[in-house]
């Protein structure tokens, strides 16, 4: 069989396409073939969560998926969060609450948090901690990430109330 396969997908709302080996990891495909280096690789064991992206609306670890599995899929990465350079409320909250230091786990934290707040718009602190236990951070000790997500939840709920009012 031929060595390369074609992978066509939507990433952050844009149709993209490239050819790669079947064994190419989705994380590497995003970073190398599509030039989206915002998603980071911390382990390739499927443990640290820095590589988390959204696959058809669900947070997944892209280092333990193959690029070919994303053929036809709709992906969102950290590069797709802001709109025209304006921070998503999550990003703004991380900025205001010191939710990042070195920034390497941050893509994973943001993508996990994004999904989490959709599922649980008014979380308690233990619930936030449980959700982000899916991503390892060595810099922050998690406190300010938890505060950032709690702050984002408030803003996003307020925005939603205003939008539907």
């Amino acid at each position, binding site marked *: 069989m031929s060595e390369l396969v074609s992978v066509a997908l939507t990433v952050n709302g844009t149709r993209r396409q490239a050819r790669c*080996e079947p*064994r*190419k990891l989705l994380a*590497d495909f995003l*970073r*190398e073939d599509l*030039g*989206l*280096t*915002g*998603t*980071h*690789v*911390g*382990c*390739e*064991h499927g*443990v*640290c969560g*820095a590589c988390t992206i959204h696959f058809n609306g669900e947070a997944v670890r892209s280092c333990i998926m193959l690029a070919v599995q994303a053929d036809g899929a709709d992906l969102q*990465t*950290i*590069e797709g*969060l*802001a709109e025209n*350079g304006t*921070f998503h409320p999550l*990003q703004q909250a*991380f*900025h*205001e609450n*010191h939710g*990042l*230091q*070195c*920034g*390497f*786990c*941050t*893509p994973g934290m*943001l993508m996990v948090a994004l999904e989490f707040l959709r599922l649980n718009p008014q979380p308690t*602190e233990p619930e*936030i*901690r*449980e959700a*982000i*236990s*899916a*991503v*390892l*951070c*060595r*810099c*922050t*000790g*998690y*406190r*300010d*990430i*938890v505060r950032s997500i709690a702050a984002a939840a408030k803003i996003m709920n307020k925005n939603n109330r205003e939008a539907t009012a």
Partner: protein
Amino acid sequence: MNESADISGKKPFIGAAMLRREDRRLLLGQGQYVGDLELPRMAHAVFVRSPVAHARIRSVDLTRAIAAPRVVYALSGIELARLLPTIPDHQVSLPGKWRSAVKHQILNPQQALLAGDKVRHVGEAFAVVIAESRYAAEDAAALVEADFEVLPAVVDPERALKAGSPIVHDQFKTNLIAELSAGKGDCEKALRTAPRRLQRRFYHHRYAALPIECRGVVSEYDARTQSITIWSSTQVVHWVRREVAATLGMPEARVRCIAPDVGGGFGIKGHVYPEDLLVPFLARKIGRPVKWIEDRHEHLMCSCHSRDQIHDVAVGFDDDGRILAFHDRFLTDIGAFNPIGSGVMYNTIAHLAGPYRIDNFFAEAKVVTTNKVPNAPYRGAGRPEAALATERTMDLIASTLGMEPAEVRRRNMIRADEMPYNVGIVYRDGEPIVYDSGDYPAALEKALGAVGGLDAFRQRQAAARGQGRYLGIGLGCYTEGTGAGPFEGARVRIEPSGKIYVAGGSCPQGQGMETIFSQIMADTWQVDPDDIVITLADTSAIPIGFGTVASRSTVTLSAAIHHASERLREKAFAIAANMMECGIQDLELRHGKVGVIGVPNMEVTLGAVARAAAPGWDHRRPVGVEAGLEETYYWEPPTVTWSYAVHAVIVDVDIGTGAVKLDRYAVAHDCGVVINPMLVEGQIIGGTVQGVGGGLLEGFVYDSEGQLLTGSLMDYLAPTASDVPDIALVHLQSPTSLNPLGVKGLGEGGAIAPPVAIANAVCDALAAFGAELNSTPVLPEQVVRIAHQGVLRSSGVVS
């Protein structure tokens, strides 16, 4: 130049929780880490690493590897030895003052860039393969054939000292590669005559930093200018540059090292690794940029580990719990190499006395090679090991005398009115250790208060016992020498635009330095932080720099910035005075201008001054003032500043499963003047959680043949958000007079105390069982064995 006060209602930036300038690019996914770099024609390197702990390399056959698809080049250590001269000694040099004051003997084994004669730990590289992709390079690496004569491995540092042990470095004929000792008073006599004595062994185990970004090096050689650029995930760009220049035989002016965004370092990226030198060598050799990105599995077996000390302590004390003598003999398992020489071990010695008054003190260190990954500084760098020995001893004294552990500490703590306090031995810089300022007893009270108070806890504890629950409280107190020399460099330049450029030798890995130094510069020059253009971690920006290790950058770079700015301001005022035809003494800095005090209209912008300073025909400099508006200053600290903290933790121990839950955690902390409280808190919390990991979860495990059993994140367990409670912080502020801003360092502090505080707390929880936990990590199984003493048998135990 102490213009931190209000000028026309403007609040200072120093002390403000200013949001970070770094955040935008990182939050947008536009950070640039070394793994993100893409250069035209870039090739990918993979290192072939030893699967055995100790072996002589008979031969390495690269034939099949070179023939594999898409391979560009391959090299073994054997061949490299023929291509490269021996690398000159690249250890940290020891100051003359230290060398004359401290009894020491240090042998330092040089590490070949690629092992050629022997491999000395699982993970040591002995060959490298370069291919068009990482995937292809890994395929080819699997085809490298090596003929090893496997040798017995030595993994126990005490056995390593015994006759007949395998020797890691044959030329030394011993595994004992360093001995250091220091002391004060007459420890032996004081021990002998003390009313009471205790002897214990403490073990602080092997674990490490685990930054989420592994290491990585990219290098590109430019044949036209015969220059080379290295991008490395490092904390020490100038050191890398110096070593690359020496290795490749190139002038430093032709070698540039940049650390782009770095995803955490915590010390273990704080020295030059073989890959930092090999990758540029390979880039020049093959005439194409070369990229090497370490993967996690590799990281666990070749990026430095840390801690791993065995302490034998003998303490003499009286019936009031006052320490009369403290003697510590300890061993460090340094692994196969010792990149930072005596640094960690002497740090341990220097910090053993902690916040306590100890008149008779003696510490002796032995450094022992074994067939494990080399041991280098990680956040705390010898201080956590000291804290374990001292703070467990305090609790043991307390339980011997039936006293509260807090009370034993109070009786031994140096008081605020005793500052500055001369400890009686020298620091790593050779200067006498003098605690500059601080209030240790106050920190102790505040930490206890922040977990709800000791008396209230004892009541809670008793009530819980009545319900069959085991709560315990533990303390960890420490002092921390920060802001170490030898120096740091700052270059400050005012641009014609009015923006102020500052470059420094520091290398951030997440601390927020772009923000901190913008705040400092903004106050220094009375401008907005956005008017500051800052470059760090780039050897082109400043010719000499030291780097970021040892909780030093805020202290040392702020002082260098201060002095460079002081001189530059004098020059700017001289030129401005000339422009406005007034006296220098009439001038002040305000809102990006130089103006006459009390005369609002008489002012010139800093940009105008810069234009006036420029060389050329129509310059506006007075006679005697040279062209340009730039200063470079290398600040050499007189000695270190002394931060300190007290950690208090309350644990809830499940004696059925052995699980230790952290119920409350508080840190009372003092780092002198605070530049950005938000960033300070982030550092403390981050360090504390790493310390919790060290105390409960993390650990490297080797088997008897030197196989690393913890080779993945499934086995090396780092704390997640669910593993740690919220941490209460209490701030104390004792400025220091040792630098212009009065700041002390703090980057490492949080990680020092948690392991011992947790051990103390669990012992307190299990006091009814006579528990003594004198090693880290505290494992659930140990708890179960203590609580079910001798009853843990195959029929199981029910509670």
